[in-house]
Every structure is written in structure tokens, then in C-alpha cells.
């Protein structure tokens, strides 16, 4: 049972916006999604079938990508602050900055995948290749979806269609974006740094 208020969206019996509660439930389920892929990667990290393995990892390059994604969380916080101050212009600037940093991260991932492919690492060459590309590929897909949502927020704001009480708002997109960031924190530590 929920009620509608003028300021927020539908409110649950605990007084919280049910869209936000639903987003946290979704993010909890995403923990299971990525947890299973990370466990699979660890199982197969040594099974290269004689092909390339973790020696291909370029830690300095991936560190820069990680830093870019980490900073995108900061710009997302700034966008959310501007949203709460009802400063539409600042919000759009920070949302675009976040989307841009996300795109830079994706560009880095495309470069990494292309380099690995050229070095002979493919999805079908070994369990290591499959586990690596599926895990990092799904994370990249989440980043891409985030970039689309951020860009949509900017367009909706420009058209005056961004309302706190209707549909997805900046706070919900921010939660999703920060989650994508924390998944990368785990991937960077477990998949890259621990395999050096």
C-alpha cells in the first residue's frame, strides 16, 4: 500500500520513497549477479589452455581507467547536490561531466579489449578468456546503460520534463552510477591487482 505526495513519489509504509527502496533491492540483486561472475573468474583465472592470461594486464592503464570512474562518482555527487538546490544548469553540467567520464572509461575498455584480442585472448580460447570478457563486458554494459540514463536526464532537464515526483530522477540514477563504480572497485582489486 502506498500513497502519493506532492514532493516525493509514492511513499511506502516506512515513509520512504518506494522507487528508492526498489532501487536498493535491485542493487542488492546486482551484487549476486556480479558476485557469481567474479567467483567464476577466480575459478578459471589459471585455466588459459596455453593461451594468454593475466600477463596481458596493463595495470597502469587500468589504474587510470579506475581513477576516471572514481572521479565520475564525485561529479555525480555534485550533479545530485545541484539537483537538490534546484540549479538546473549546474546539474546538467555535472551530469554531462559524469557521462563524459563514463564514456572515457568505456573507451579505455574498448582499447583494452582490442589489445587483448590482438594478443590472442578471445572468449572462445580458454575458460580464462570467457570469464574475463563476460565479467568485464557485463560491467561495461552497465556503464553504457548508465551513460544513456545520464544523457537522458540532461535531455529531459533541457526540455523541462525532469520532475522529482515522476519516473526516474537524478537520485535514482546516481545510486545506479555509484553502484557501477563500487562493482569496478571490486573488479579492479580482485581481477587486476591480485593477479599481478
Amino acid at each position: 500500500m502506498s500513497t502519493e505526495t506532492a514532493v516525493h513519489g509514492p511513499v511506502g509504509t516506512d515513509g520512504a520513497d518506494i522507487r528508492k527502496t526498489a532501487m536498493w533491492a535491485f542493487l542488492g540483486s546486482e551484487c549476486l549477479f556480479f558476485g557469481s561472475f567474479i567467483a567464476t573468474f577466480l575459478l578459471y583465472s589459471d585455466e588459459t589452455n596455453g593461451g594468454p592470461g593475466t600477463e596481458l594486464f596493463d595495470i597502469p592503464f587500468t589504474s587510470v581507467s579506475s581513477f576516471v570512474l572514481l572521479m565520475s562518482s564525485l561529479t555525480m555527487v555534485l550533479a545530485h547536490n545541484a539537483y537538490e538546490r534546484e540549479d538546473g544548469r549546474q546539474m546538467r553540467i555535472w551530469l554531462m561531466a559524469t557521462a563524459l567520464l563514463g564514456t572515457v572509461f568505456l573507451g579505455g575498455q574498448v582499447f583494452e579489449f582490442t589489445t587483448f584480442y590482438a594478443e590472442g585472448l578471445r572468449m572462445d580460447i580458454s575458460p580464462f578468456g570467457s570469464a574475463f570478457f563476460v565479467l568485464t563486458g557485463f560491467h561495461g554494459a552497465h556503464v553504457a546503460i548508465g551513460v544513456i540514463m545520464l544523457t537522458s536526464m540532461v535531455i529531459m532537464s533541457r526540455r523541462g520534463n525532469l520532475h522529482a515526483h515522476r519516473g526516474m530522477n537524478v537520485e535514482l540514477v546516481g545510486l545506479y552510477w555509484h553502484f557501477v563504480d563500487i562493482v569496478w572497485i571490486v573488479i579492479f582489486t580482485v581481477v587486476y591487482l591480485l593477479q599481478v
Partner: protein
Amino acid sequence: MIALFLGIVTAVEIAIAYIPDLNRTLLTVGLIGLGILKFSVVVGWFMHLRFENKTMNRLFAIGLVLALSLFFVVLATFSGILAS
């Protein structure tokens, strides 16, 4: 300040990974510890979970606990620990 802190922790992680002849167990514990620290800071402060109500905290905690359980069960089962 939080972003600066996260940047510094990331730099420390990378530095630790490159320390020559560092004990493998120490390296693993150190990197996982710093990873957990970064994870907690982003979830607690950037995502404001520490300021949210119990329902949201529980929903995320359930997902996290289930994910960790699944993680260790999969590793234990397929790496042969449970079979031996």
C-alpha cells in the same frame, strides 16, 4: 574530501601491488582490506546508505550477504575444497 581520500587509497593499492617480494598473504589481505574500505565509503557517503532507513539498508545487506555466500560456496565447491 571523500573523493580525494578514495584517490589516495587507490594510489596506495597500486603501490602495494608493485612492492617487490611482498608476502602473498599480506598482499591479498591488504588489497582486499583497502577494497572493502573504498566500497564502504562509496556506499555509506556517496550513496548515503548510512543515512537511509532500515528497509533500504536491509535490502542491500541481504543482497551483499547472499552474494558473498554464493561466492564462497562456488569457490569451495568447484576448487575441490568440499570434495576433499
